[in-house]
């Protein structure tokens, strides 16, 4: 499962960027939370973090979205 983020490109369009690959959804979830936390205070070009299934070498379909910073429900969905 891939982890990435959504950012606004130089032309003002939203662009999804793959960040990392993981063998399980649990690992992907942990990585996504860490990434979202690390993006706190960014230049606002990065809007959100997500994890999902890859559909190409660089693309993935987002399945779960994380805010920056993640909400409590996103951190601990149960």
């Amino acid at each position, binding site marked *: 499962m891939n982890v990435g983020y959504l950012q606004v490109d130089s032309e*003002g369009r939203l662009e999804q960027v793959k960040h990392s690959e993981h063998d399980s959804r649990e690992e992907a979830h942990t990585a996504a939370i860490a990434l979202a936390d690390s993006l706190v205070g960014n230049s606002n070009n990065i809007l959100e973090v997500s994890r999902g299934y890859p559909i190409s070498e660089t693309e993935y379909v987002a399945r779960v*979205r994380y805010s920056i910073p993640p909400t409590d429900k996103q951190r601990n969905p149960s």
Partner: protein
Amino acid sequence: MAIFRGVGGSGDSSDNSFLQEVTAQANAASASAVLAQASANSILTLTAATGAAGSSASYNASTGVLTIPRGDTGATGATGATGATGATGAQGPAGSDASVTAANVTGVLTGGTGISIASNGTITNDSPDQTVALTGTGATTITGTYPNFTINSVNTTYIVGDGGLTTNDFTDADHTKLNGIEANATADQTGAEIKSAYEAVADTNAFTDADHSKLDGIEASADVTDTTNVTSAGAAMLASSPTFTGTITAPNVDISTTGSVTTNIATGGNNSNATDVKVVNIGTGYGTGFFAGLSTTINMGSQSSNAQNIFNIGNGTTSGDGENTINLKGNVTVGGTVDGRDVATDGARLDTLERFYRTRFRERNATAFPFQYLTNTIADIGTPVYTKSTTGSENTLDFYLGTTCADYYDNNDGHIEVVVTAPQPTNEDTVYLGTASNPVTNTSTGRYSFDVVGDFTHHLTDYCGMSVNSDGSNAFLYGQTRSNAYYNPHTNITTISCNLYQSYRPALYQTVYLHPFDWENSGTDIIGSTIQIDEVVYNSQKMSRRDFSVYLGYFKSKVPIQLRGKETSSTTDNIAIRNFGGVITQIED
């Protein structure tokens, strides 16, 4: 001749005055004594005896001895006066024992009752021959005179009676009666002994004060068969067609077992009281927990195959607001039909029918327009709607979205997501699809397809996850991009296409599992179906309404469905959501 010298004698021999007197008295006494002797000799011979000096005279009538005490020895006479050579006076003779001749001494003798002593010493019985009264009683008679009496009694039968002999007859009957008295019979038993002996006898019970009080409490001439008495006591007689006004408690009642019977319970007619309610309770008691004693079985009607049993409820002239209701918690077993229908057959048929549930929703802002603007940040549109929990249903969301796009050419790019929050993964069934066959790789389309036996198309959604493992590890994506599936009923094969560029897509003969919510943790918002909005507007605003249909998949849980949206262009506030609404349709099988 007796000489008596008393006290005071001068001792002088010439002084004999006293002696003379004594002598005279003695002579008189002697004469009396002679007379007395002569008289007494007729009875006893009187014998004189000398008593002790100083003692009283006594007479022993039985011996006839009269004892007279003797006098003391007389004092020595005084010396004579000196005379002329006179000779000394001769000493007086010593006193001799007094000798009393029983004559003329009556002055010192006293006769007893009926005895008199004459002055001449004659002692006379003044009351001879006193009459003794002897009287006979009953059969005894007394005859004769003193001193000879004759006592004659003609009853010579004597028995021992109270205080001595009795002449009461002791007959054979008396003897027989005595023989009839048992040994140790006693007539002096106490009441307690008699009571104890009585109560010791078989079939004999103690009669206590309580019993006595109880009997006292029974009215005179009490009659338990008197209807008036029985009724006044709160009871009733069977033969009197009683009417009870209180509560009747009877653990077992057998009203009738044979014959034609009509039993009425709470069948009273109209009494013009609209509030009267007739309640007949049968076996309604209950308590904490379940016990066999709380079970109730109501049998009605004959069990005979020829019986025609009819159970009527409100079978009459019910009209107006009247209604009949049967409330039952439990099962009903019907051996026949209901309204001519075999409910068991119909039920089995109904079980195969799918059930539909529709949940409609609509949101708009009645006071402000528009409802909501989209921004670059994804945001909820309205509030979530929920599916209904079922035993398993296919769930489809059909909704419309009313939008207003502003006058920005090529910048009205909207992104709408339909997000489903995952329930507990274990609440949903992981579906085993079998093993993959006929794998096909299509690099030109970027798809990878495989076949499984059976129709699984209702499980395949943008929200499901697929894996070659039942726990969801090494999952791959079905949905959204380059995914579809179709079922061939002729071959009973479902062909599943997914994105080619996935590491864990199933190879030939690999097992395939599916989970409706991708094994995600409960509470995880799953991004499934997405909708893109791209309006071209020039020198105007464009209001539009779009209809969408999103298949959510086959599951059981109640899950929230949330619409979210954002603008993907850098220019915001170009797309406004005016309203939205729709329906969730669930088909439960």
